[in-house]
């Protein structure tokens, strides 16, 4: 009796020890450091197709003076209102995660228009360590837009509540893209959050060309890395010194980071739902540099002030004002060929409704030229009004409708045989999908 029992107990004990050894040898659920380079979670694709109705002069995108993404078909005179479908944009966003503090964002996009363009939009690394302590640090480095816009969000830098951004943020999207490194430090106290961002960059030596030769515009076309933007007819002297295009992501003054630009941003989140942003940009370029294509360096600086506030639970108010200065070319008769001051502002109110939003925005913009080669003939004043609505149809599908009216006064339109003052109307219906 006792012998049997002991044998049984030994057998049971051995079985238990064996089971525990096997269990112990099998790997515990691993903590792989959060690495996820390529998986369904790291990839997103988006597409945007539209129905567009537009009248007026030929758009800047086709080499005219028109302020909108789309425009009339005739370069010589304003067109009547007409409706047409358009493929706007398709994006692939890849966001690999290298560790819990280091991730990447790469955005490739195909952009519709007269010609379909494809290319790289942004490619940057983001570092965001988890640290206790009063000061939180983060950084980004690569090809990216500086953090100016209050209208864009998400890795694909999409306009959230309307189709077309303000004049200020349209310019950022089309001409102010940099290759650089940015760091942010933020701290919180008493319900306030203060962040300071600083960056060193290069490859934006021609920023200011579009604003000078074409003026402000309102559209959602993005500049792709190393791609070009068209210019309207130039004056007689500039026609000999500048091609009818400009490359925004461009290094012309002696080599990458030999003459770096910088930007700095101060953000103050108040204890109430309101945030103030102050932004300063200076590309520190040499206005006398030129490359073999006859593209010149532009010394461009600007200040931007932004305000976001939520006056009530379902209302968002946004406003920005930008003041800047661009210099290009050699001094002649006491002034650089181009000495242009630019300014623009907008105020926008968004009301969040069931499954979407409604937004209204007013834009004001203008430029003043005091240069020796580009003079007041290229001065500009204008305004735009926009009404937009967004509705989420399903988790991955949304529709936006937008009406825009723009009016601008630009004497340089005479070069295209057009009257200085031109109005423009554009209606867009956009279907956006995301996977």
């Amino acid at each position: 009796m006792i012998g049997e029992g002991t044998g049984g107990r030994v057998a049971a004990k051995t079985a238990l020890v064996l089971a525990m050894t096997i269990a112990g040898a099998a790997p515990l659920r691993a903590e792989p450091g959060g690495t996820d380079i390529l998986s369904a979670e790291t990839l997103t694709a988006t597409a945007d197709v539209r129905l567009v109705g537009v009248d007026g002069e030929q758009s800047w995108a086709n080499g005219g003076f028109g302020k909108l993404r789309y425009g009339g078909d005739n370069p010589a005179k304003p067109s009547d209102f007409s409706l047409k479908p358009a493929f706007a944009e398709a994006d692939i966003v890849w966001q690999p995660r290298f560790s819990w503090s280091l991730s990447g964002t790469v955005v490739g996009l195909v952009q519709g228009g007269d010609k379909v363009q494809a290319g790289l939009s942004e490619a940057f690394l983001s570092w965001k360590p988890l640290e206790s302590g009063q000061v939180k640090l983060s950084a980004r480095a690569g090809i990216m837009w500086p953090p100016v816009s209050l209208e864009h969000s998400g890795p694909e830098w999409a306009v959230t509540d309307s189709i077309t951004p303000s004049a200020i943020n349209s310019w950022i999207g089309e001409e102010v893209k940099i290759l650089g490194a940015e760091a942010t430090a933020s701290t919180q106290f008493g319900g306030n959050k203060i962040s300071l961002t600083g960056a060193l960059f290069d490859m934006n030596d021609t920023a200011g060309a579009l604003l000078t030769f074409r003026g402000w515009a309102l559209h959602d076309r993005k500049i792709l890395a190393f791609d070009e933007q068209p210019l309207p007819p130039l004056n007689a002297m500039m026609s000999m010194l500048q091609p009818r295009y400009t490359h925004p992501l461009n290094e012309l003054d002696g080599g990458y980071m030999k003459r770096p630009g910088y930007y700095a941003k101060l953000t103050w989140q108040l204890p109430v739902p309101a945030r103030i942003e102050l932004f300063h940009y200076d590309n520190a370029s040499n206005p006398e540099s030129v490359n073999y294509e006859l593209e010149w360096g532009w010394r461009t600086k600007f200040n931007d002030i932004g305000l976001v506030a939520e006056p009530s639970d379902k209302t968002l108010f946004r406003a920005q004002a930008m003041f800047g200065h661009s210099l290009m070319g050699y001094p002649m008769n006491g002034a650089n060929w181009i000495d242009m001051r630019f300014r623009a502002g907008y105020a926008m109110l968004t009301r969040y409704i069931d499954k979407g939003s409604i937004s209204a925005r007013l834009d004001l913009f203008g430029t003043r030229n005091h240069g020796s080669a580009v003079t007041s003939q290229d001065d500009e004043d204008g305004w735009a009004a926009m009404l937009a609505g967004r509705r989420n149809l399903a988790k991955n599908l949304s529709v936006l409708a937008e009406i825009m009216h723009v009016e601008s006064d630009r004497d340089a339109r005479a070069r295209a045989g057009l009257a200085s003052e031109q109005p423009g109307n554009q209606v867009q219906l956009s279907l956006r999908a995301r996977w």
Partner: protein
Amino acid sequence: MRHFIGWLLLLFACASAAQAGTLTVRVVGADGKPVSDAVVTLRPQGGSAPALRPQGRYEVKQFDTQFHPFVSVVPVSATVYFPNLDPFKHHVYSFSPAKTFELKLFAKDQTRSVLFDKAGVVAVGCNIHDNMSAFIYVTDTVWTAQTDASGQAVIRDVPAQALTLSLWHPYLSVPGGVSNEALAASGADRSKTIQVKLRAPPGHHMNMGAY
């Protein structure tokens, strides 16, 4: 004799129970509107309170890029589970003195858990999604309740002693974050309305331009 003492004890027990009332607290804001997610705690003045035992499963879910619930009350030594219902990863953390932890969660349907062994308020965030926020109030007393959508919290079996009533809310704008007041001894059912001044909650649509 044993039976007599037994009946006497029973009598005392009944008497004490009869002396324990219900306290209904209504919390309203400066505008008179009900305040939910306020935590009311009663402690005897000069004495300790019986501890609350873990009951059921405590969860703070992540879905729609937010924590649910926003405020939860758990007893000391409770384990809270953090199931991730979003189709992407979260990196949940807290640096609160009551519990410092970090959970590197993976995609949908993965869960981690944390043991909360100290009383206090734990502020929870996600390092990837800055707008995610939750609070876990770890309590050492059974007389704790959280106000619901109508601003009401009910504490039962309140003993007939002098008590200190503490009120906490994530947006309470008071130094120390907790407001205290004395509560007189009473065995009766009673109700109390407390008006609080709260900071404005962070806007839901404010993260425009988040890069």
